[in-house]
């Protein structure tokens, strides 16, 4: 092959490369396009209205962090945690723990809030989808940490004691709104988003913290 042929070949390669690497729209334009496509691509079904697609600011920031692999900066994370913390209310009657047997049922139950679920049903907690909890239930997920012996490991012998107060309050807060403690936690915000009622959260609290719960055996 002669030198001029080589030159021609490399010029063609550059042309092809340029054509292939035609610049993508800016990241902001792609964000906008994605929102437009979302608006065109979904319809309401059952209780799942299209209002569910309106991202709140926390989700927008965390989604971007997940996508780019660059965590939200510390200041922003603090702001997210602070505004989620502000949503957490203590139990209305001052009692944090309900019945662990009911808590186990809620932890097992993965139903609720899909477009095939009736809007008026009690929602499940989906807990076992992501966490090990009791020793007996082998069908547990691994997306979240194991919660087996949750109270025992943390030294909770009397959930009503002053010594147990910090861990009881933290657990309450975590279930009510996990993103008060970890800005981009994957855990649903059970009270803040109206998934579980206060009474249901008390039952799940008992499952984790009651010394008589099988979790702490």
């Amino acid at each position: 092959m002669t030198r001029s042929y080589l030159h021609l070949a490399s010029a063609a390669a550059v042309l092809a490369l340029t054509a292939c690497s035609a610049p993508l729209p800016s990241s902001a334009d792609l964000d906008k396009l994605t929102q437009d496509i979302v608006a065109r691509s979904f319809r309401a079904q059952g209780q799942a209205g299209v209002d569910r697609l309106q991202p709140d600011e926390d989700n927008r920031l965390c989604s971007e962090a997940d996508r780019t692999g660059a965590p939200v900066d510390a200041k922003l994370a603090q702001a997210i945690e602070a505004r989620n913390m502000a949503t957490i209310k203590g139990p209305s009657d001052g009692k944090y723990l309900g019945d662990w047997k009911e808590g186990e049922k809620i932890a097992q139950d993965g139903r609720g809030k899909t477009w095939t679920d009736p809007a008026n049903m009690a929602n499940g907690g989906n807990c076992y989808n992501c966490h090990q909890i009791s020793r007996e239930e082998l069908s547990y997920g691994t997306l979240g940490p194991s919660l087996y012996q949750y109270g025992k490991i943390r030294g909770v012998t009397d959930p009503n004691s002053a010594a147990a107060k910090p861990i009881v309050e933290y657990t309450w807060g975590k279930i009510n709104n996990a993103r008060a403690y970890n800005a981009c936690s994957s855990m649903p915000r059970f009270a803040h988003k109206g998934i579980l009622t206060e009474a249901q959260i008390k039952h799940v609290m008992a499952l984790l913290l009651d010394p008589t719960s099988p979790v702490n055996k």
Partner: protein
Amino acid sequence: MTHRQDVHGAKRWLLIALMGLASVAQAQKSSTDSIAEYRAMLQDGNPADLFEAKGEDLWKQKRGPKNASLEQCDLGKGPGVVKGAWVELPRYFADTGRVQDLESRLLTCMEQLQGFKADEIAKTPFGRGEQANVTALATWISAESKGMKFNLSQSHPQERVMYEVGKRLFFMRGGPHDFACATCHAQDDKRIRLQDLPNLTQQPGAGNGFGAWPAYRVSNGQMWSAQLRLNDCYRQQRFPYPLFGSEATIALGVYMGVNGKGGEATAPAIKR
């Protein structure tokens, strides 16, 4: 189909698969292996075969208002070329001016060649009428690429834009539970209950996950297309209902398919 039913299905399954195993600890360790064994046993008689046969018939049959077959349908490799088409989809089509996946492309062909109304088919519930036929066609067409490697094009600007949109959708947290596709499918070696979750952001998870659908689901005895798979993912994410062949579901197909480059096509697979 709820999570709970899924879980009960899995439990039933586990019981079958674990028969003979004595201790609970042993069961824990080998449950995934046992499920894999059970799946391997099922491979001998995957009911997807029946849908494949139906799909091939539908491709060749003269049907619709124009009484024509689909044999001149262009799935991206030229009119009538079926083998290898599926491992390159979704892709950009010049005649429609957009990126299409297999199912949305089939609707285009059914409208243009056979005279069906694509809009009407898109609105038909899964498993009914012409929708059931689209699923059977997709089953046969995907089977014709079985064992081939995924190789989606990213040469057209729209294909690259759809990848970026798909990526944004994949990570988009929303709905009452703040779930994104990424909540379950962006890490290696995770499970929901006992079900292994493929990491769809990279190989090998993307090829294994995306490359398995259409698949026959033992738990409900249904053939599920890729569009139905995504539809049910969104249901479980507590999102509203994605339209059949919507830009969102196609963009996700581009994202997963490109991530799965080099992965082997296993569809039509058999799933629990």
